[in-house]
């Protein structure tokens, strides 16, 4: 097995219960996003675009679905003979198997995998963030500063800083303190959950951490603080650009809406930094004579007879005549009949919405409506809130 300078490990373990009805069948990283993608496409594409060709995806929830989606990695140019992408569910060992207890434990359980490539550095990523970032630049920064660990940070508004893990740094980017959700933050540099470690050092810390029965085996809570208190030189790599954690239904909806508008924060059309994804085999989208589409993202395979405004349509969506879709995210293969109104909603894939249904609050409001997957919504139903198949009025 040839040596690799840097191996990436994507933490894709979470069931994502806060995404509720959208993660019944798939893990959070496999949730559709942006009319075409799955959330994990962003981390995988970042790896490819940064020249990192060896990626482990740590998952323990529905590994089969993620396996089927990622396949041999060819969609992200990660179908390599040596390296490439590997799905790493927890497996059974001689002394029995166990779930990944925390983010650090997940990497600990895969030390053998990483050792195969004898890397100098390991890049730890989260599978549920939407952003475009050149990890090669971060790695250069890490080497330049001769750090033991480098943490990606982003400036957040001061009034939100107390919701994040906050880094205090000196003028040389050296981290002087790390506070998890500080009530009175001394800085507005939030950790993005992106770490580069010198691998031999991290391995030692992981072994120590595993022996510490008091540890929760988490990078943010245990490993990073321990390294800091041991005086390891750690630096913060400042990232500029769009970055969003899509861990809740509201943030998932917001991140989709962020793609609209004339000059969105995240440019999907940048040819120098493509976001790769599995491309379904679908013909071009068809907008009929009666269609009205404004300020929206629409994918191939859609057929639109109705009105679509400020919305995102995934492949295979059909929208009947006289139906109106406003401020909404319509997942793959949703069929919407005639005279339907949908407002500020996310509709799960393969759901059928029958004639005259009204989804979402009747007037512009703050509340998001979410309809689950593979449902059949009867004609003239009215649905608001989180809906997953109970009786409808």
């Amino acid at each position, binding site marked *: 097995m040839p040596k690799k300078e840097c191996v990436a490990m994507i933490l894709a373990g979470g069931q994502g219960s806060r995404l509720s009805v959208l993660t019944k069948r798939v893990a959070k990283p496999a949730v559709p996003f942006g009319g075409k993608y799955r959330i994990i496409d962003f981390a995988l594409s970042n790896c490819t675009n940064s020249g990192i060709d060896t990626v482990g995806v740590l998952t323990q929830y529905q590994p089969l679905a993620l396996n089927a989606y990622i396949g041999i990695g060819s969609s992200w140019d990660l179908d390599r003979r040596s390296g490439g992408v590997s799905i790493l569910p927890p497996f059974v060992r001689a002394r029995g198997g166990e779930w990944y207890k925390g983010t650090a434990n997940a990497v600990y359980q895969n030390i053998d995998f990483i050792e195969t490539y004898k890397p100098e550095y390991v890049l730890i990523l989260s599978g549920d963030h939407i952003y475009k970032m050149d990890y090669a630049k971060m790695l250069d920064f890490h080497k330049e500063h001769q750090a033991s660990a480098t943490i990606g940070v982003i400036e957040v508004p001061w009034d939100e800083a107390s919701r994040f893990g906050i880094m205090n740094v000196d003028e040389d980017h050296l981290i002087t303190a790390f506070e998890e959700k500080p009530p009175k933050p001394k800085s507005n540099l939030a950790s993005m959950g992106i770490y580069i470690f010198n691998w031999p050092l991290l391995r030692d810390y992981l072994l120590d951490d595993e022996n510490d029965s008091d540890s929760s085996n988490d990078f943010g809570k245990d490993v990073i603080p321990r390294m800091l208190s041991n005086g390891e030189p750690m630096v913060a790599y400042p990232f500029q650009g769009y970055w969003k954690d899509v861990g809740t239904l509201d943030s998932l909806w917001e991140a989709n809406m962020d793609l609209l508008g004339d000059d969105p924060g995240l440019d999907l059309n940048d040819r120098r930094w493509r976001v790769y994804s599995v*491309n379904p085999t679908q013909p*071009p*989208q068809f907008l009929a004579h009666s269609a*009205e589409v404004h300020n929206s993202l629409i994918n*191939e395979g859609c*057929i639109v007879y109705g009105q679509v405004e400020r919305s995102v349509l995934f492949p295979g969506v059909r929208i009947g005549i006289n139906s109106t879709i406003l401020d909404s995210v319509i997942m793959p293969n949703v069929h919407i009949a005639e005279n339907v109104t949908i407002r500020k909603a996310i509709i799960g894939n393969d759901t059928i919405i029958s004639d005259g249904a009204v989804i979402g609050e009747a007037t512009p409001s703050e509340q998001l409506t979410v309809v689950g997957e593979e449902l059949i919504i009867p004609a003239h139903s009215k649905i608001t809130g989180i809906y997953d198949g109970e009786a409808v009025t």
Partner: protein
Amino acid sequence: MSEVMGVINLAEPMDNMQYLTEHRPLGAVPFGGRYRLVDFTLSNMINAGIQNVGIFVQDRYRALMDHLGSGKDWGLDRLRDGLFILPPDGHHHSLNPGDIELLHRHLDYFEKSRQDTVVMTGTSMICNLDFKEVLAYHKEKDAEITIVYKTGVPGPYEGLCTLLDLTSDQRVTGIEVDPVIPRSRNLSMQMYIMDKGLLMELLDQSVSRGETDWVKDCLNRNLGQLRVFGYPFKGYLGKIASLQSYYRTTMELLHPTISRELFFHAGLIYTKVKNEPPTKYHESANVKTSLIANGCVVEGTVENSVLFRGVKVGKGAHVKNSVLMQRSIIGENCQFEHVILDKDVLVSSGKHLMGAPEYPLVIRKKTVLS
């Protein structure tokens, strides 16, 4: 159908396609918003389970090689079988060989292939056809050669047609190529099923007799001796023989019943994967009765048109009855009607272009109109 190999002959007449075939063979002409013509026959083949396809090319085929690559997007990147692009080889060949010579030069490819039966097609016939049914018919008729045809030439008659004379039993008794006055309504779709050994034998016979044309020379001479049958195709057929028929066929895709049949009927149509994002419609967009591929950014009005991947239509622009190929960029307030833009055309603001329905205006690849 793993016992069948596919042969796609790209040495096709393309004199009437204007700039569209200046730098590419007919099979590489973009069609239907995200395809090339060759995708249709190639997808029909793989949907029927054919795993070994040879593509015979004559010249101008770099575009085709770029498009097909290793065949991965059609599942044809195989150690055994797979996709083979067969260029004219050796340096002592006639500059304009007939299709028989082109095929004959690669007899070794036929010989090496494990399959016993050949499906041979061109790329000018656009349809979604189940070759498994044609093969079953071929066996049922105990035919030596089966030719797929369609009764009732679609669209106005254009001269460039191969027509079959058929008995009531579907036996082919005569073939006419490009007659000025048509004496039959049975349009040959230039798709043939036959035994591989027979094809090799016929090619060798023809070459040694100095014949050059597969239909006019070889098939016609052998109609008496061989059991040649016609298979009647009942589905939608688009025939690309000229700029006019290209434009007309494209416009027919705007009928949902036609495009549904063409894109889904017997199997899906595969093409080269491009990682384009979903198409973005701005607030000012106004799009009606159009097929739009991914990666477009629309700020203007588009009506009755086909937009390929990555096209940009500026604010106030009005595009009507037009075909805009990959990555064309249309400036603000342009007005287009009956226009075909080839790939990578850049039109700056305020230009007006207008062709006629029976004579669309073609702008060649990479033109900059500023």
